[in-house]
């Protein structure tokens, strides 16, 4: 067994200092002396040596763990499989056949880069264990690159490149001028769209706050001694300041995400594999076979839709956005392209994944009512219960009539606003919902405020779940849940409110 490289230890000498800093901050209150008014009086100097000792002990334990981890961990490439042993308290021996390898990922954050360290993770493709990396190796960057090349070749049953005269050449699909390039211009648009989305959400909140305020003016008349106008103006100014503040914050986060998070976004074709890499502070390099791709998702938020943009994502087991070294599962499924014009989607997919070009919607949702019926009933029941309890409590404690009227109005407004947001979301879901079925491909249109067009192949279907209520069945309306072969968090695709013929057509596609 080959041991992990020592740079792992040097990296943690630095990285674990952060953990100690967190420890110090968490317990720093214990050093401060305060008077009865909770004002700062001084520092418990006698406790400082103990405090330092405790911090050093924490650091020592962490480093000891790293040393033991390094001593016990190792990996080996055999003729047909890769073997990895790791873990201090709980030892884990992983054996993965090359032909079963799914996504091979390389990750490297900025501190790891300083120490020339990189992390290699390999996923077996099991949907149930896709949350954690089955194979994890800490090695020097050079060694990880070499391992990547060897594993890519062995996965496809080829002789590793270094044993041949020359390495296979990647076809870079994000070469200059193509639709796939995530250029600086697109990064700026991406950031601006995020700002507009945040500002729009805030404006909606402000609008509803204003509605509530205007409705309450007659009841608060006595309290608004200077008149409603004098209260309204400062409130609007504060709202505006908050709006600008949030927009600026979103702008900074978006700029960081698009320029640093997606720095040097690169898609390359390597034989039968696709390689997607991006990131400055943490560099991700994800490699997987074309045949491992289970679906392509075209996502459009409300603002993206207005301006005609979309995000392309990939359904591949073990390929997530986010997650850490040990844990693959992130908040979102893998990225194919952060931003492109909706017009470009077809040509991009034609060039890179022609089997996954979304087809035009063939069947739309049959009725609007089922999108709102049960959820509205639930919102109504919860509101009624809240109103009943709050108002009876207030009666019980003899609350003044005006307070009762205000609360009654507030509950009513909260219900109206929730219903308005819900009904509009349901309307969008109704308009978006639909399906296109061909011999080997299924395109599912869905989502409300966030529109999703998911294209999967027939071979990805695992099971079909038919969901209905007696009334919907009577009206011939069916919802189907398609279970597909992918990550445990995203393996269900809901197809809303189909007619019986489309539902049956879809069910017939299930390969038995």
């Amino acid at each position, binding site marked *: 067994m080959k041991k992990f490289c020592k740079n792992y230890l040097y990296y943690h000498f630095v990285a674990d200092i952060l953990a100690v800093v967190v420890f110090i901050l968490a317990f720093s209150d214990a050093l401060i002396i305060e008077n009865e008014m909770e004002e700062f009086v001084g520092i418990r100097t006698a406790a400082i040596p103990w405090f330092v000792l405790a911090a050093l002990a924490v650091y020592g334990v962490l480093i000891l763990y790293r040393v033991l981890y390094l001593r016990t961990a190792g990996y080996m490439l055999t003729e047909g499989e890769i073997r990895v042993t790791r873990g201090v308290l709980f030892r884990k021996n992983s054996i993965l056949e090359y032909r079963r390898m799914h996504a091979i990922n390389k990750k490297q954050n900025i501190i790891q880069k300083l120490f020339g360290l990189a992390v290699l993770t390999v996923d077996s493709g099991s949907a149930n264990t896709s949350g954690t990396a089955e194979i994890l190796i800490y090695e020097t960057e050079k060694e990880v690159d070499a391992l990547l090349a060897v594993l890519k070749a062995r996965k496809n049953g080829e002789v590793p490149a270094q044993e041949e005269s020359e390495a296979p050449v990647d076809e870079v699909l994000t070469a200059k001028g193509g639709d796939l390039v995530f250029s600086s211009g697109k990064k700026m648009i991406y950031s601006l769209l995020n700002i507009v989305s945040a500002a729009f959400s805030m404006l909606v909140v402000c609008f509803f706050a204003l509605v509530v305020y205007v409705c309450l003016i007659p009841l608060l008349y006595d309290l608004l001694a200077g008149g409603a106008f004098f209260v309204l103006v400062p409130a609007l100014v504060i709202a505006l300041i908050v709006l600008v503040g949030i927009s600026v914050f979103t702008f900074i986060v978006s700029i960081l995400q698009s320029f640093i998070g997606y720095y040097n976004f690169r898609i390359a074709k390597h034989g039968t594999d696709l390689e997607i890499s991006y990131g400055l502070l943490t560099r991700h390099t994800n490699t997987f076979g074309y045949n491992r791709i289970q679906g392509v998702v075209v996502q459009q938020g409300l603002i993206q839709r207005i301006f005609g943009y979309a995000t392309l994502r990939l359904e591949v087991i073990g390929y997530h956005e986010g997650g850490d070294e040990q844990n693959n599962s992130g908040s979102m499924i893998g990225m194919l392209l952060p931003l492109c014009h909706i017009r470009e989607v077809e040509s991009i997919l034609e060039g890179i994944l022609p089997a996954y070009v979304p087809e035009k919607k063939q069947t739309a949702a049959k009725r609007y009512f089922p999108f709102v019926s049960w959820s509205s009933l639930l919102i109504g029941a919860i509101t009624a219960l809240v109103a009943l309890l709050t108002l009876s409590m207030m009666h019980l404690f003899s609350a003044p009539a005006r307070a009762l009227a205000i609360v009654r109005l507030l509950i009513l407004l909260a219900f109206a606003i929730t219903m308005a947001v819900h009904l509009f979301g349901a309307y969008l879901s109704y308009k978006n919902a639909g399906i296109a079925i061909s011999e080997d491909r299924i395109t599912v249109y869905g989502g409300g405020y966030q529109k999703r067009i998911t294209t999967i192949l027939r071979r990805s279907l695992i099971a079909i779940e038919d969901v209905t209520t007696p009334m919907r069945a009577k009206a011939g309306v069916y919802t189907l849940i398609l279970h597909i072969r992918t990550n445990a968090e995203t393996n269900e695709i809901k197809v809303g409110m189909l007619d019986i013929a489309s539902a049956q057509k879809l069910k017939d596609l299930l*390969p038995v």
Partner: protein
Amino acid sequence: MQMKKLDKGALKLWYIRSGIVSFILLAVFLPAVIFIPEGVARIAVLLSGGIPLLIALAFILVLPYFRYKLYAYGFDEKRIVVEHGVIFRHRITIPVCQIQDLHRFEGPIMMLMKLSGVTISTAGSNFDLACLSKADADAMIEALEGHLEKRVEEKADEEIL
């Protein structure tokens, strides 16, 4: 395909579970009411806690009956079908050829009542069949293993052809 009902023990098990949950809820709520002195505060607690508790208890105690009545499962050489749900009726179709592995599970009460659950693992999702009798669970697993082997051979032949 002939659909089967669950073992009657399943209904008993679900009622036992509902009883335990109801007991815990009441054990938390009743002392709170008893120890609060009589007056407005007690009425307030009775109202704020009692109404949601009554609604919850009604659901907890009524649901098992309908759940049992509407639960059905069946399988043949090619597929497994599970029907469940009270308000929203679910009908899941799982092709036998998609089975990765089959698990039998038993909790402590299930063991006492000689009941077993079966988990059907596929490459995408896990599907649970709740509360079969042990004999039924074993028979189902054995039959499905046989069907799976047969389907794998048939699929291999189809690919060759």
